[in-house]
């Protein structure tokens, strides 16, 4: 419980109506998509960089931790107030400050919802590609802090590839700028890239300078069903070897296809054991050609059926199969542990076979789908945690999945980050000296360890 003097100081900074300590508010800012709960002591809603700087200075004086929070939709607990303290919500900072059509650059505030930004730039014929599944509600600040990915990454790259510069508040309350609106810039360390994906542990992001692209004229969606995961994986390699980089290359494995078949009345033939949803974008005239070329390339690979959408409605119907996965999975088991390993894309079939073996070993369903084009597999371990022993089995299975991904030259997390959920597994992927290198940076920038403590590193700094 924080003393009233400290609360009064916070109130002076952001106004009494933007500071809350009552139980209902504390509950509402205690969780994220991990479903873990940690009650904060106070929730603040600042509206400017100056207010955030003042809050950080106050926190430093008193040693009270601060937990930055956007939409609270992360999968690894990055915004959870572990151990209590101040939850600092960025949603009042939600403006687009500038869309510069001459330089293809935009400047935005961190609380802006990703899709709102995308719609705004698309209105003037521009394009911001990163598309995490949460884009309708997650914030750009959160996307930068976690370096969010999404289906379009196979062609366009991830969030950090679009961030030219930032304005940040340091853990000690200073306001600094990193990078800037130019395409080039090599003066000093690249702090922009350091902050991207630092999970709110090194700075609070208050402004984001974003690179934009011209909006592709059109897109075309196709769905190809294969009789085996190997056929689907081979298709991914063959398409890319033929110099076609689709916008998205989403796959669903046999177990996922089974779930969809059982849970929905969508038409999926019994012989389909893997599905690829492929989208290409660009000039209209090339799209038909590309789609038929892809159909040609995939044909000898055990294709059960190919569907090519001719209208936006048909495209929507194809995506419906992918979108129905989440709800379908719940019919398998109530609790889902959603991991997001990433392996070199040629290793996807090998990884799926490893996961199938792990599922058989522990006798728990594991369904896989995700972004085949960049090797980012969403591994869903489905259990009923109320059944005794299931949780332990899931934990062991997940550890084996991580080890399997690392053996193939991959990583534990492609886009969700570490947070608190993957922190215990960090030693699997990073050597002690690498972890020490990171901790040294953290200690130097945040000597009192008050900015989002308890995240990323297995033991606290």
């Amino acid at each position, binding site marked *: 419980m924080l003393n009233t003097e400290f609360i009064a100081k916070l109130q002076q900074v952001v106004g009494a109506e933007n500071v809350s300590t009552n*139980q*209902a508010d504390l*509950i*509402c*800012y205690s*969780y994220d998509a991990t*479903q873990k709960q940690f009650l904060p002591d106070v929730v603040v809603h600042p509206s400017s960089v100056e207010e955030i700087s003042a809050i950080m200075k106050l926190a430093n004086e008193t040693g009270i931790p601060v937990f930055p929070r956007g939409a609270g*939709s992360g999968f690894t607990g990055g915004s959870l107030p572990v151990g209590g303290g101040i939850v600092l919500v960025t949603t009042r900072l939600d403006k687009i400050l500038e869309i510069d059509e001459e330089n293809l650059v935009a400047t935005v505030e961190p609380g802006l919802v990703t899709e709102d930004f995308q719609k705004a730039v698309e209105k003037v014929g521009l394009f911001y590609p990163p598309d995490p599944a949460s884009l309708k*509600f997650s914030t750009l600040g959160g996307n930068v802090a976690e370096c969010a990915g999404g289906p379009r990454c196979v062609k366009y790259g991830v969030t950090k590839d679009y961030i030219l510069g930032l304005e940040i508040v340091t853990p000690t309350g200073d306001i600094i700028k990193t990078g800037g609106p130019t395409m080039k810039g090599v003066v000093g360390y690249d702090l922009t890239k350091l902050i991207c994906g630092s999970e709110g542990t090194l700075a609070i992001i208050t402004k984001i300078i974003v690179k934009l692209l011209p909006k592709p004229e059109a897109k075309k969606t196709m769905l190809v069903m294969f009789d085996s995961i190997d056929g689907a994986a081979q298709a991914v390699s063959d398409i890319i070897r033929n110099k076609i980089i689709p916008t998205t290359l989403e796959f669903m494995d046999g177990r996922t296809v089974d779930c969809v078949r059982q849970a929905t009345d969508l038409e999926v033939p019994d012989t389909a054991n893997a599905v690829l949803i492929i989208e290409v974008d660009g000039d209209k005239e090339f799209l038909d050609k590309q789609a038929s070329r892809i159909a040609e390339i995939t044909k000898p690979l055990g294709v059960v059926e190919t569907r090519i959408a001719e209208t936006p409605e048909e495209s929507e119907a194809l995506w419906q199969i992918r979108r129905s996965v989440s*709800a379908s999975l719940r019919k398998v088991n109530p609790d889902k542990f959603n991991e997001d390993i990433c392996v070199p894309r040629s290793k996807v079939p090998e990884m799926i076979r490893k996961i199938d073996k792990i599922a058989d070993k522990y006798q728990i369903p594991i369904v896989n789908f995700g972004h085949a084009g960049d090797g980012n597999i969403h591994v869903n371990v489905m259990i009923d945690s109320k059944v005794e022993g299931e949780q332990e089995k899931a934990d062991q299975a997940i550890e084996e999945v991580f080890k399997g991904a690392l053996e193939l030259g991959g990583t534990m997390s492609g886009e969700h980050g570490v947070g608190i959920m993957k922190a215990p597994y960090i030693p699997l992927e990073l050597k002690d000296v690498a972890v020490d290198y990171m901790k040294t940076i953290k200690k130097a920038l945040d000597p009192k360890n008050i900015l989002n403590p308890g995240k990323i590193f297995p033991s606290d700094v």
Partner: protein
Amino acid sequence: MAKLKQLEDYREEIDQCVKCGCCRAHCPAFGAVKHEGRVARGKIALADALLKGDVEMEERFLLDMSQCLLCGSCYSQCPNKVPTEEIVAATRLKIAEKKGLSTFGKGVATVLKHQGLMDFGAKAGGKLSSLLFKKLPEDSGMQLRFPAPFVTKDRTLPPITAKPFRDRHPEFIEGEKDKPTVLFFTGCGINYMYPESGDAMIRALKFLGINIIIPKDQNCCGLPAVSAGAAETVETLAEKNQKVFAKHNYDYIVTACASCNSGLKNVYPGMGDEFADYPEKVKDIFVFLVEQGFADKLDELPKAAQRIKVTYHDPCHLRNHGVTKEPRAILKALPQVEYVEMENAGSCCGLGGTYSVYHYDTAKQIGAKKANFINESGAELVATDCPGCIMQLQDSINHAGGKQKILHILDLVADALPD
């Protein structure tokens, strides 16, 4: 005995919320003020805390629970289909149980239930009007100010009809022998505010040769009482209605009000086995008309040379239950209509039952957004399928200074039918 589901009965549904945050993209109340307590995920966390004894019914909790339009926008987009609107309604029952009904809630309960116990019917119209619609100048049309208790000053409302719908028609209208018989559940909106829409529906049904029963002693569906947390009122009204319906032989119960439809089809079945066949028996009028081939019949009529641009607003209580195609099919088939789709046709109008009484400012903000979408569509008329939406949308357009008229699809149907 009809009995509403209690918060404890929603334990499993509460546990199904995985806190993904998807509801943040779809909640109209959250869209107005981005506070987590307003959004479905927050309310579920609070309901959960209440059940576990981790939160008191203090001011903030009560405010958060009142900040819900029960529109179900969150439910319709929720990956796990968690029925937040039902969970909030059940929480409000709990609040009313412990704290008593609010003054307005008491008003709603008294009017609806008291009249219900005393043969709520045509005669009650006057009493309902006198409580809710006092001092209403009859000649001032839609643009009037509204000084009655509980109603915010600058809300514009339609006039109350001098002759309620159910006084205008006999209780039974015979159609063709081989055609189905429908029982028309009029609801209060059609009966007291928009009886002409009801008249239009009778014409459409007669045109198809349908047999019609309009029970004079039917009651309010009780949905406003659900919103206010007045459990006993809802239960009493449901029982009364069930007894009224049981006196007649019919194939379907039809409604021309999305809220009534939802009350009968979705709320009643949770109250007992006697309502088990309601989901199947109760039909929205346009679902029924399309099934009867009415859209094809309209299509056969010669198209008008000059057609009016019309768009459609999806009432939440139909959209949530998958009724989106049928109203559009009828509109598109009308000879005088050039149909245009507006952006976000399915976003809530902002009325939310008693919501707009407590939170008229937020309701106005939500309505202003909707007025914008209407403007951008270029439509001259907005047709919908719910008297509540019509009232709220017209109020929003009036405040935005727009020229568009809001009406029931049935009003347009009446214009198209041969005399």
